[in-house]
C-alpha cells in the first residue's frame, strides 16, 4: 500500500477513526494498530507478515533472556543480534552470495554448487530488522525498558514507519504507546503540512524528475550529451531526496495524526557545507543508528587513536553502503562518503596554522558535488556503467538532450527548498491552525486536485522500498 493512493486514503481514515474511538482502550488500541499494520504490510505480500511477527518474537525472546539471565546477558545479546543479521543477510545477500560462490566453484572446475533460491526481498526488511537490533541492544544496555510482546510487535510493525523508516528508537515510542493519546491543534496542523508537502515532493517533483529526465537518461547514458548527464545527475540527487524525505514527512504526519511523535529524518541536507554536516541532515534516524550501534558500539567511536577513528568512520560508511544491497556500487558509494569523512577529519587535525578556512560556499559546492558523484554509483546497477557515464561527462561528449525547462525547474524547486527557513513546516502549521476546519478541508482538497493533475500517470513506488 503506497501513501499517495486512494486505497491508503480510505485505509487511513478508518484507522484514524478507530484510533481515536479507542483512545482509552489500552491494549485493544494497540491490537487495532497492529492488525492495521499487518493489513498495510500484507498488501505488499501477505507472507511477509509472518516474517514480521517472527522477527518481533525473536527480539522479544532475546530481551527476556538477557533480563532473566544477566550473567549470560552478553551471549544472549550476541545471539539476538546475530539472528537479526542472519534474517537480513538471507533476504538481502543470499542470491548474491550463491551466485558468487557458484561462479567460483565453476572457475575452479568443481562440480559443486549451492542451491539457488529465488529470494523475494520483503519490503522494509532492513528497517524493521534495525529496529529489532536496537531494541535488544537498548534493553541490554538499560537504555530501554523491556516491552511486552504486544508492545514490541506494534513498535516494529507500526505502519507509518514500517517500510522505509524513520527508524524509531524503542525508548522514544514505547512510552507513547503506553499513554492515552492526545492531539493538539498545532501538532495536527503541522502533521497536515508534512503530509501535503510530502505529497508534492513525491508525486510531483520526484515523479516528474524520474519519468521525464532521470530514468530515460540513466537507462541509456551513452546516447545522451554530457550536459544532459550532468543535469540528470543533479536531477537524481533531487529526486532521491524528494522521494525519500517525502516518505518520512508523510510517515511523521500520519503518525502525528494518530497521536504519535516521530523524530525528524531530514534537515535540508543539500545545504550542508561538509560531509560530516551532510550526515547530520540526511536520513538522521539511520545516521544516528549507525553512529550509536556500529561506529561507537562496534568500532569504538572517536575516543581512540586517530587511525582507529578513521578506520571506524570508513568501515561504518562502507557497511552503511552494503546495507543498501549486495552490490559493488553500494560499497563504492559508502567508500566515497567514508573516504571524504576521513579526509575531513584528517584536515581538521592537521590543517597548518595560518591557512585560511574554506569559505562556506566552497564547502557547500564541494560537498554537494561529492554527494552527487556518489549518487551516480548508487543509481547505476553496474560499476562499468557508472564509470562510463562519468567518463562521458569528463570528456564532454555530444549526444541527445532531453532536459527541459520543466525538469530543470523541478531541480531548481527541489534545491530551493533546501535553502528556505529551517522551520518552514512549523510556520505553515501555525498559519493553518488559525483556519476553521472547513477551510482546512478546502485547502487540502485544492492541493490534492493540483497533485492529481500534475502527477501524470500513477505514482512510482518509493525508491527506499527496495532497501
Amino acid at each position, binding site marked *: 500500500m503506497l501513501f499517495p*493512493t*486512494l486505497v491508503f*486514503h480510505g485505509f487511513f*481514515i478508518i484507522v*484514524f477513526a478507530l484510533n*481515536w474511538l479507542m483512545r482509552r482502550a489500552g491494549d485493544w488500541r494497540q491490537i487495532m494498530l497492529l492488525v492495521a499494520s499487518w493489513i498495510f504490510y500484507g498488501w505488499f505480500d501477505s507472507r511477509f507478515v509472518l516474517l514480521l511477527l517472527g522477527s518481533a518474537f525473536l527480539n522479544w525472546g532475546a530481551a527476556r533472556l538477557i533480563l532473566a539471565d544477566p550473567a549470560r546477558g552478553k551471549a544472549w545479546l550476541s545471539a539476538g543480534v546475530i539472528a537479526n543479521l542472519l534474517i537480513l543477510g538471507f533476504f538481502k545477500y543470499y542470491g548474491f552470495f550463491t551466485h558468487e560462490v557458484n561462479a567460483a566453484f565453476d572457475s575452479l572446475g568443481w562440480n559443486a554448487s549451492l542451491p539457488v533460491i529465488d529470494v523475494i526481498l520483503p519490503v522494509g526488511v532492513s528497517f524493521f530488522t534495525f529496529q529489532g537490533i536496537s531494541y535488544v541492544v537498548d534493553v541490554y544496555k*538499560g*537504555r530501554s525498558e523491556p516491552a511486552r510482546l504486544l508492545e514490541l510487535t506494534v513498535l516494529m510493525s507500526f505502519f507509518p514507519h514500517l517500510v522505509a523508516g524513520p527508524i524509531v528508537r524503542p*525508548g*522514544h*515510542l514505547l*512510552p*507513547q504507546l503506553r*499513554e492515552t*493519546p*492526545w*492531539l*493538539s*491543534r*498545532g*501538532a*495536527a*496542523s*503541522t*502533521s*497536515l503540512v*508534512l503530509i501535503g508537502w510530502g505529497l508534492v515532493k513525491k508525486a510531483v517533483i520526484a515523479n*516528474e524528475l524520474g519519468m*521525464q529526465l532521470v530514468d530515460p537518461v540513466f537507462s541509456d547514458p551513452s546516447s545522451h*550529451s*554530457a550536459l*544532459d548527464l550532468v543535469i540528470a545527475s543533479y536531477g537524481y540527487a533531487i529526486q532521491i531526496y524528494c522521494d525519500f524525505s517525502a516518505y518520512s514527512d508523510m510517515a511523521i504526519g500520519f503518525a502525528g495524526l494518530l*497521536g504519535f*511523535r*516521530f*523524530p*525528524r529524518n531530514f534537515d535540508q541536507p543539500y545545504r550542508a557545507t561538509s560531509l560530516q554536516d551532510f550526515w547530520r541532515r540526511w536520513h538522521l534516524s539511520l545516521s544516528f543508528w549507525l553512529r550509536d550501534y556500529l561506529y561507537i558500539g562496534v568500532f569504538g567511536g572517536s575516543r581512540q587513536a586517530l587511525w582507529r577513528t578513521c578506520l571506524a568512520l570508513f568501515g561504518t560508511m562502507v557497511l552503511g553502503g552494503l546495507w543498501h544491497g549486495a552490490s559493488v556500487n553500494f560499497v563504492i558509494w559508502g567508500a566515497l562518503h567514508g573516504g571524504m569523512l576521513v579526509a575531513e577529519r584528517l584536515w581538521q587535525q592537521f590543517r597548518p596554522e595560518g591557512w585560511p578556512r574554506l569559505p562556506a560556499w566552497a564547502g557547500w559546492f564541494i560537498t554537494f558535488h561529492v554527494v552527487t558523484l556518489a549518487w551516480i554509483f548508487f543509481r547505476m546497477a553496474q560499476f562499468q556503467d557508472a564509470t562510463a557515464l562519468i567518463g562521458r561527462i569528463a570528456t564532454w561528449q*555530444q549526444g*541527445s*538532450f*532531453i532536459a*527541459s*525547462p*520543466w525538469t530543470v525547474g523541478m531541480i531548481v524547486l527541489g534545491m530551493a527548498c533546501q535553502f528556505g527557513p529551517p522551520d518552514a513546516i*512549523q510556520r505553515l*502549521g*501555525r498559519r493553518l*491552525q488559525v483556519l476553521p*476546519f*472547513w477551510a482546512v*478541508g*478546502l485547502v*487540502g*482538497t485544492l492541493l*490534492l*486536485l493540483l497533485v*492529481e*493533475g*500534475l502527477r501524470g500517470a*500513477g505514482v512510482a513506488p518509493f525508491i527506499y522500498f527496495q532497501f
Partner: protein
Amino acid sequence: MSQGLPWGDSPIDLPEEEPGEVKFLAPEDAAELEELQAESDDTDADMGPHERSHAWQVPGVRAGLGWVSGGVAVSTLALLGLNSHALANWADQLPVASVTAPVVSAADGWHDTAGALGLNAVVDAVEGAAKAMRKAPWPGQKPSGGDSETPAPD
C-alpha cells in the same frame, strides 16, 4: 503527547506547545514518583520530586482532534465530487472479476457524470497545463513533436 521523544526532536513539535511547566509535588505524592525516577535515566533528577504538565494542560494549547476530523471529512467529501479521476484510475486497476465489474462500472459512470457536470474541470485544467509545461522548449529551441529529444546546445 508523550515525552518519550525529547521535545523539539519531532517536526510536529511547536515550541509554544511544549509540555514543560514543572509542578513540584507534595511529599506524599513524591515518594511514589521518586521510586520511578530512581529507575529511569531522568536528566532533571537533581530538581527534586516533580512532574511535567501534559500538553493539554499548557495554557493556550487547543485540542485538534475535532478540527482535523472536520477538515479530513470536508476534504474527503469534496474529493469524491471533484476528483473522480482518482476513483476511476483505482477502479481500472482492480482485477477483472464478477465482483469488481460493478465497482468499475460505477466508478467509470461517476467519472463520466462528473465530467458532464463540469466537476472534473480543475484536474483537467491542471493536467492540460502540466502537459504544455512538459513540452515547453528552451528559448530559441524548436518545439519538439512526439519525440522530445533534441540535439544538445553547443
